[in-house]
């Protein structure tokens, strides 16, 4: 008797893909050296060059709206055709009242949609993407909008202050025959791992220091990636690009090496050195940077990581349609180049640490 092997991969019954993608990064940059100076640490031992800081009038909703508008421009579809808006973030402006409904209204989504906010630390955005794949892939809808956006807050003087940044990306998921990049399969690896959390009513998160390494980030990222590749029958060389969750510059490089990916493969999608860790936006924004230059036939492996903990691995293949869509909205590199340096005091003001009463 032959045993039917059940694949661990999630594959929709209808082929789907990214019909449109868009990013948003605010213009302000705080150099890590400025943070080090304030706390009397060495300016040489900083984990990244600088991070993106949101302006006084920006938040997860406003950034999500612009990223979504960019995605819709590239998708070339009327927002009235969307049937879902799902936003992943750990900095939703409301604890109760979804960012997704505000974003939906602002971009012109209709009233007959699914909407909700997701939280799973830095993987909430990719979880939204998998949900969108499921909705479209099951033929329940033709188009769904998934976003990963954050305005992460760093506890003053804490290690994470260097990297907690703001930014996000949005994806219109739709039928594969309209996609700029097909989504071939997804695989997620999730456990109850307390590496980083924030209790309700606390302003800043707590983290487990070195515990956030091996048992957390590396275990989940490498397991998700290697499982997906094994189940798909692929090897690192099969991929033109790999995008890993990027809390700093070191972790994704090490994960890449552990898995057998080269620096060349991860270079395009590794943005944390210049914009910091945009949390739920991190690997999604990295993916947009890759899509901005990827060519037809390029295979992309995207692996997010969210503390708590879990990783979503997503396998994509770029189509011929991608090339003409890139120019329809600002490229991620344009947002990165749009840069105004601020000092620590201005950063403290913008992040609401100094209030004019």
């Amino acid at each position, binding site marked *: 008797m032959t045993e039917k092997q059940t694949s661990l991969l999630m594959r929709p019954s209808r082929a789907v893909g990214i019909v449109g993608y868009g990013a948003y990064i605010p213009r302000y940059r705080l150099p890590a050296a400025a943070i080090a100076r304030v706390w009397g640490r060495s300016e040489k031992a900083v984990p990244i060059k600088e991070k993106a800081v949101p*302006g006084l*009038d920006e*938040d997860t909703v406003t950034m999500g709206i612009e990223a979504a508008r960019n995605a819709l421009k590239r998708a070339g579809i009327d927002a009235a055709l969307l049937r879902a808006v799902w936003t992943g973030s750990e900095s939703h402006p409301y604890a109760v009242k979804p960012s997704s409904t505000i974003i939906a209204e*602002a971009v012109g989504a209709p009233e007959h949609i699914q909407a909700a906010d997701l939280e799973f630390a830095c993987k909430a955005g990719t979880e939204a993407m998998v949900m969108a794949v499921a909705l479209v892939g099951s033929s329940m809808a033709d188009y769904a909008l998934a976003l990963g956006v954050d305005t992460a807050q760093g506890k003053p003087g804490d290690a994470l202050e260097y990297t907690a940044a703001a930014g996000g990306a949005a994806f219109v998921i739709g039928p594969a025959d309209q996609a700029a990049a097909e989504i071939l399969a997804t695989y997620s690896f999730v456990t109850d791992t307390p590496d980083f959390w924030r209790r309700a009513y606390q302003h800043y998160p707590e983290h487990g220091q070195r515990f956030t390494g091996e048992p957390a980030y590396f275990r989940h990222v490498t397991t998700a990636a290697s499982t997906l590749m094994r189940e798909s029958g692929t090897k690192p060389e099969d991929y033109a690009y790999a995008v890993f969750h990027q809390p700093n510059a070191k972790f994704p490089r090490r994960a890449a090496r552990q898995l057998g990916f080269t620096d060349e493969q991860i270079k395009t999608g590794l943005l944390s050195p210049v914009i910091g860790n945009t949390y739920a936006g991190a690997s999604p924004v990295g993916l947009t940077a890759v899509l901005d230059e990827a060519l037809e036939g390029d295979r992309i492996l995207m692996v997010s990581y969210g503390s708590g903990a879990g990783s979503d691995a997503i396998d994509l293949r770029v189509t011929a349609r991608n090339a003409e869509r890139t120019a329809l909205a600002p490229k991620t590199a344009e947002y990165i180049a749009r840069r105004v340096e601020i000092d620590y005091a201005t950063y403290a003001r913008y992040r609401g640490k100094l209030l004019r009463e």
Partner: protein
Amino acid sequence: MEIPRHWRLQKQRYGLLGEVCPHCNAKIFPARDVCPECGGEAKEPFRFSGRGEVYSYTVMNSAPAGFEQALPYTIALVKLEEGPTVTAQLTDVEQEKVSIGMPVEMVTRRIKEDGSPRGMLVYGYKFRPVMGA
């Protein structure tokens, strides 16, 4: 709490959703009951592109309640490419770089809290220099 009036104007404020007059084709913002050009009844929705130019601007050094955190901020009269003019804050631009005639584009930003940190958030249009210009 001014929830109902903010809710009433959401679509207009979030995305510059105005009207087009079915009689004379004038583009109207904000939405009105009567077309200011021909006097006919105006009701058809029209979404503005968000592109326009600065007609005038000024820097506010004191602010009405709810806007103090943003001081100093620049307020402008922006002439939209479809015709109407709106009053709006400029954002993502240093006040020295603003000039009359400057091309701008609409972005949706947080305008204020309704009364307190417990109140609802009011989002709406502002304008920034055209990206990539």
